[in-house]
């Protein structure tokens, strides 16, 4: 049996932000979802945050909840992978860019650089100097969970020692009917690790429910139940954060080897 540890997780959504360790709800009078300001989310410096588009902000904010050490100048992490899953992608900034284009000579290069969902990968990679394998995926509503799964596969294949896996959806009207902000980040580690795992993804050779929380009394519970491709249907998994510090995943993918 092979185990991949989830050693940290973080989330930012329309209810609040935080990690498995601590959760902060947005103030009552905040807009839903609220405008993200770096100084609210973190004590650590990050001057660029205000210039990022919505999707990047959501992904970077969720990753900040993992409390990863920020590298020293010159330090890099080639053994760390980065995987982002998003269904909506950067539709929000796509429309903003198109709007800027409508003015003669107004096409904004800054907005253009964000019209790729993978720019969020780039921003994260730059902030944490992560230079290993990187991937941005879309597969409908289950994109976040697919990111987690693809991240785990990279570790299983020995292509990285740890992986930052993120699912993020962020957009505002008119790109979407109602504003959306939902991002969760996980730190996966092939181990051995000195951080106690919050949960473990376990891979075995038979079709069982394979993810077990290592400490049932902890607030974080992950349920991953995978459906094999042998069933004939690949179900699109849905991942969402139901309530602070509880992760519920329905119809996930089973690994059968």
């Amino acid at each position, binding site marked *: 049996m092979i185990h991949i540890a989830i050693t940290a997780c973080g989330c930012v959504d329309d209810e609040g932000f935080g990690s498995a360790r601590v959760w902060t709800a947005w103030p009552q009078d905040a807009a839903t979802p609220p405008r993200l300001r770096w100084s609210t989310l973190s004590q650590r410096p990050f001057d660029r945050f205000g210039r990022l588009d919505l999707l990047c902000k959501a992904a970077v904010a969720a990753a900040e909840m993992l409390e990863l050490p920020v590298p020293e100048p010159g330090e*890099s992490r080639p053994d760390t992978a980065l995987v982002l899953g998003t269904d909506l992608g950067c539709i929000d900034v796509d429309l903003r860019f198109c709007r800027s284009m409508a003015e003669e000579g107004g*096409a904004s290069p800054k907005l253009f650089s964000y019209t790729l969902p*993978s720019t969020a990968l*780039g921003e994260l990679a*730059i902030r944490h*100097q992560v230079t290993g394998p990187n991937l941005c995926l879309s597969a409908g509503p289950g994109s976040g969970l697919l990111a987690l799964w693809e991240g785990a596969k990279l570790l299983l*294949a020995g292509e990285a020692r740890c992986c930052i896996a993120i699912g993020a959806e962020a957009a505002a009207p008119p790109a979407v009917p109602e504003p959306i902000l939902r991002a969760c980040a996980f730190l996966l580690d092939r181990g051995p690790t000195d951080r106690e795992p919050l949960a473990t993804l376990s891979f075995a050779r038979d079709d069982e429910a394979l993810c077990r929380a290592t400490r049932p009394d902890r607030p974080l519970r992950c349920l991953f139940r995978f459906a094999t491709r042998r069933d004939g249907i690949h179900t699109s998994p849905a991942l969402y954060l139901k309530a602070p510090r509880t992760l519920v995943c329905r119809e996930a993918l089973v690994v059968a080897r």
Partner: protein
Amino acid sequence: MCRQRVAVTGLGIVSAVGCSPAAVWAAIEREASGLGALSLFPSQRCGHIPVAEVRGEPADRSGLRSGSRTDHLAACAARDAFAQAALEALPEALRRQVGVVLGTTTGGILDSEAFLERLLAQGELAPELLRHHPPASPAEAVAGALDLVGFRATVSTACASGATAIAVACDALAAGEADAVLAGGADSLSRLTVNGFGSLLNVAADGCRPFDAGRTGLSLGEGAAVLALETEQHARERGAPILAWILGCGSSCDAYHATAPRPDGSGAAAAMRAALAVAQLEPQAVDYVNAHGTGTRDNDLAEGLALRAVFGDRVPAVSSTKRFFGHTLAAAGAIEAVVCILALEHQRVPANLGLRQADPEIGIHPVPHTCDAQVRVALSNSLGFGGSNGSIVLARAS
């Protein structure tokens, strides 16, 4: 990201120089560029800049009832790959399990531009125009057209997407999530990309000249390419003809800047080395490199340095084929994988079209004309915005 070698059993390609592997190779032999005038939509500001536009109407051949231009391009290429690989011959339950992994950057943006135009002009929200916007749309369109329910994912790593899609497909095969996968990339021209790249001031008014001393920038293109990939066992068991092997894929991230590559090329070098490591090959085993070579000052310099770092004094035959196809963004990695497969088949190396004088600062000497060569192993690079780098090692099927 692959381990055992993967068989390529089918190809599909839609591009400005041709909509079949044979047509594309004929253009490469004729050294005929696909660059021409932009006719897809009017552009006062950028309309004079040459682009590589797909001729004819992709919607006529895609088999889709509806979809964005990118969806149609993807479906045309996917159908061709599926047909050449004779995947239709599989028993229905297995045929439906064929996976789809596609890369795209623009997705349905051409339609989405219409949504915004209508909103700005008439104040009217027409959400159906955004229906094909999600990045997953082309993969959904292909799966729908071919009635496939297996592993499905869309990859978006900017200009490396096509290469990354092939790598993710190889991963899925290795993990047993599928026995056959259609993998590739698709992107259409759009006002967003034409104006967006224009705003970066790195588009060539006279067409791209990769690695040339006088290069001024890139040329945009559109298109799609799809490879039918299978495990060796699966291909042999059903007697599918094997067109080429994928020996390894490598990926890295520059972690440097949203649009500029790391100037020393170390990110690109890392991806190439990673691919060679998976393929278990030394650099000297590579006979031909299809470079990303967009023709921008930054990319070509960084990539040239990367090639010299990986190959030392013995850089193999190199060419960038971007002046044939334009820079097709997410489709590039897949189109260039097809070009490598054709080079392996024909034992000829494609011209680095547009080269007048190789830039001495870069220090590599791309092949100026399509010519004979012994090509057993090819390497294809795709280096994307945001610093995503992908490299694929392919080998001749013999």
